[in-house]
């Protein structure tokens, strides 16, 4: 199992429209190794994996499998080459048995008219003998998330794969469950399988992988043995992105006036012991890896989900919030990260979208909507946000992503909010609209509106915010501002605080 290379990729390019997702990317995978791929959100990891699995086609570049140049045109073809991909999201049929799920592809290709359940279960039991003790006749719905993840892996294994791609498989797992998974990974690797392991978590990479490749902004940065590199080095390689575009000027002198305070918020297992303050005029950021609990905290405060306990104080007044309606009444609003899913009403008029948060505002005493008042509100807020539209009575679906987001933002502003939580406010928004939105947020902050921005884009947080709280595993793991407001510091707090600790402990 020496240094035999099974997969070699070079000069890989891939663009989506004007966006360059990968440029001149290299990657090399040896037989029997566990190879981590690290990078920030949007660094190109998923694009690379999707190309290896044939889901996407590269614009140019070579993929060499066992010394032969190949074109992988579909996941089916990838399977023929022995490449298995376990996606982050579990894609099993919840209502049928484990065995049927595992052999779905085989059943699909089968010519026989009847299902041979006994044979399926026997074969599945054979697969699991190598993995763990899951009963193949159990219905998938009844399994825990971690066991479902194992079923996904088993499914990939039945395809006789030699290369297994695991995309953040531990995101939904507990520590012990992850450990089981790592043991299995090691066993598979020892049998000669090559595993590509995608993760943000430095601990996992350093405890379980042999080598690590770092991508940044769609470019290849480095590939190293984990033995010869430290977690901090990896983080340094991941960050150091040039902050693109112009960000509005930050707050000059920090105000002492506190407009919002959260005290001891708890909502296990989403988040725990969350306390923070928001000062007048500042833009506060919430950073953290996806799934760390950033959005959960905002939605918990807004009473949109969960049952958070703790105190909420707005402008010195302790609030008793039960529903999101109560929040809106007090001027606390939440801009959703999923614009199309729950941010806007795509098939409804722009004006009706903007007034949705408090329709009563554009109605008279009898509860009748004054359409000219509604149109006026839309026009005024639209002008303020530089919204580009054909007609205010046209549906939002006709607008570009950036303008849809401005509609969602106008909806927030329609109630004169005192505090806005913005979850990924510039996701899917073009560069121009993005910097406009940043400018608007800064202006709002300077007029005394509380602005809390959740973002997965570190340059955005650094460019826009005065202060950033970092969330890790449902807790606030630190706060950075001023000189310390760097990508490296945020990444350190978000992913490796205890990686360094644990490695040190082990070294001792």
């Amino acid at each position, binding site marked *: 199992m020496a240094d035999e290379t099974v997969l070699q990729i070079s000069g890989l390019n891939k663009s989506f429209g004007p966006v360059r997702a990968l440029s001149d990317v290299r990657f090399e995978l040896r037989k029997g190794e566990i190879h981590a791929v690290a990078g920030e959100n949007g660094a190109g990891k998923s694009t690379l994996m999707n190309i290896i699995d044939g889901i996407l086609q590269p614009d140019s570049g070579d993929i060499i499998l066992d010394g032969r140049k190949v074109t992988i045109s579909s996941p089916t073809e990838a399977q023929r080459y022995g490449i298995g991909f376990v996606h982050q999201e579990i894609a099993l049929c919840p209502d049928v048995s484990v065995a049927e799920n595992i052999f779905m592809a085989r059943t699909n290709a089968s010519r026989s008219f009847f299902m041979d359940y006994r044979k399926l279960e026997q074969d599945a039991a054979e697969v699991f003998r190598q993995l763990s003790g899951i009963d193949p006749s159990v219905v998938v719905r009844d399994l825990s998330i971690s066991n479902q993840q194992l079923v996904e892996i088993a499914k990939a294994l039945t395809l006789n794969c030699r290369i297994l791609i695991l995309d953040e498989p531990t995101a939904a797992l507990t520590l012990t469950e992850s450990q089981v998974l790592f043991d299995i990974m090691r066993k598979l690797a020892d049998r000669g399988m090559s595993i590509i392991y995608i993760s943000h978590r430095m601990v996992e990479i350093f405890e379980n992988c042999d080598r690590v490749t770092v991508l940044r902004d769609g470019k290849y940065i480095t590939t190293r043995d984990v033995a010869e590199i430290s977690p901090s080095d990896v983080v340094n390689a991941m960050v150091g992105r040039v902050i693109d575009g112009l960000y509005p000027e930050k707050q000059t002198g920090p105000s002492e006036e506190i407009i919002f305070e959260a005290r001891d918020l708890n909502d296990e297992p989403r988040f725990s012991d969350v306390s923070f303050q928001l000062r007048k005029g500042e833009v506060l950021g919430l950073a953290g890896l996806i799934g760390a609990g950033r959005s959960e905290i905002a939605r918990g405060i807004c009473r*949109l989900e969960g049952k958070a306990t703790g105190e909420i104080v707005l402008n010195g007044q302790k609030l008793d919030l039960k*529903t*999101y*309606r109560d*929040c*809106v009444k007090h001027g606390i609003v*939440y801009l*959703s990260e999923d614009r199309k*899913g*729950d*941010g*806007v*009403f*795509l*098939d*409804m*008029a722009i*004006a*009706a979208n903007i007034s*949705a*948060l*408090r*329709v*009563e505002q554009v*109605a008279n005493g009898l*509860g*009748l*909507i004054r*359409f*000219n008042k*509604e*149109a006026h509100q839309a026009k005024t807020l639209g002008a303020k946000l530089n919204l580009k539209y*054909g*007609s*205010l*009575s*046209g*549906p939002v*679906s*006709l607008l570009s992503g950036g303008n849809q987001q401005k509609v969602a933002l106008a*909806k927030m502003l329609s109630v004169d909010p005192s505090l806005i939580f913005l979850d990924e406010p510039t996701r899917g928004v073009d560069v121009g609209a993005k910097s406009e939105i940043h400018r608007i947020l800064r202006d709002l902050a300077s007029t005394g509106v509380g602005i809390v921005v959740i973002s997965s884009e570190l340059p955005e947080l650094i460019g826009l915010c005065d202060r950033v709280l970092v969330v890790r595993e449902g807790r606030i793991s630190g706060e950075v501002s001023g000189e310390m407001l760097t990508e490296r510091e945020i990444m350190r707090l978000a992913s490796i605080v205890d990686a360094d600790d644990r490695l040190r402990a082990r070294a001792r």
Partner: protein
Amino acid sequence: MSDTVHVEEALLVPNRRSDGILRGLFRMRETGLVLIILALFITMSFASPYFLTWANMRAMSVAFAVDGIIVIGMTILLISGGIDLSVGSVTALAMVIAGWLFLNAGVDPWLASLISIACCAGIGAVMGFFVTKVGLHHFIVSLAIMVIARGICLLGTGGRPIGLFTLPPEFKFIGQGSVGPIPVVILIFLAFVITFDFMLRHTVMFRKVFYTGSNEKAAAYSGIRTKKVIFLTTTLCSTLCGVAGIIYMSRFGSAQPTFGIGLELTVIAAAVIGGASLNGGSGSILGAILGVVLLSLVSSSLALLDVSVYWQDIIRGTILLAAVTIDHFLNKRRR
């Protein structure tokens, strides 16, 4: 680019609740339906000498007026994202309850009607409960209620119509009387149409119905109590069935336990032809009423032309399929 946007808006935004600007333009669906109805009307007045008689006009409009009241409830329910298959049997049940109270318990017919409508509202509330609190689907809940309500009708009457020969003339006036040349039924129907069409377009209350149906999660994220909205639209639909049942009872002078079998199909078809979407979020009362008028006009035209009744269902089904297909492609282009 901006030109295409305008063109698309003009073409592809039918029957959306308009905001006062360019109102006429956006009601493409209503305009189209009116044109089709007019064309059919003119053709028929040449094809049949009986068509353009006062008696025929009167019979035709009375035929769709009462169902039209149910269509209003169904349209609002569809806009909120729900559906109700029980409208036919709940309408029959309204007749049976009121008729039974009047005949066997000696209750004043007006009071009996009120109690009966309240019972229908109660049935709607029960469905609303199962949908919003228990979390079942409208389709299956209303299917169960459809069967249960019909069962109660048959159980209470032994399957035979209850003749109500002693109904006072004031009560019969609702279903059989006229004010001048216009049947009272038509006046009641128009009152309902105008009231609900206006409310649906202009009130905050009904705007929330549109928000809920358009995107329930986004509505919840706008602080709208979506479950309450769905509960209320479900209850409203059954209540309007109750009203329709009472009018039918007055018109027939009897309570018919087997009335309205298959009515849900006509009512849903009318609402959908009029622009309501089964996915919620769109629909208009005016459109739905035009849908009823169209279906009813087709039926009576075919009858006048001596076409077999069996053909009627085939043709009505075809019209529904055509309307929904056109809608599907319009929506696809808009997305």
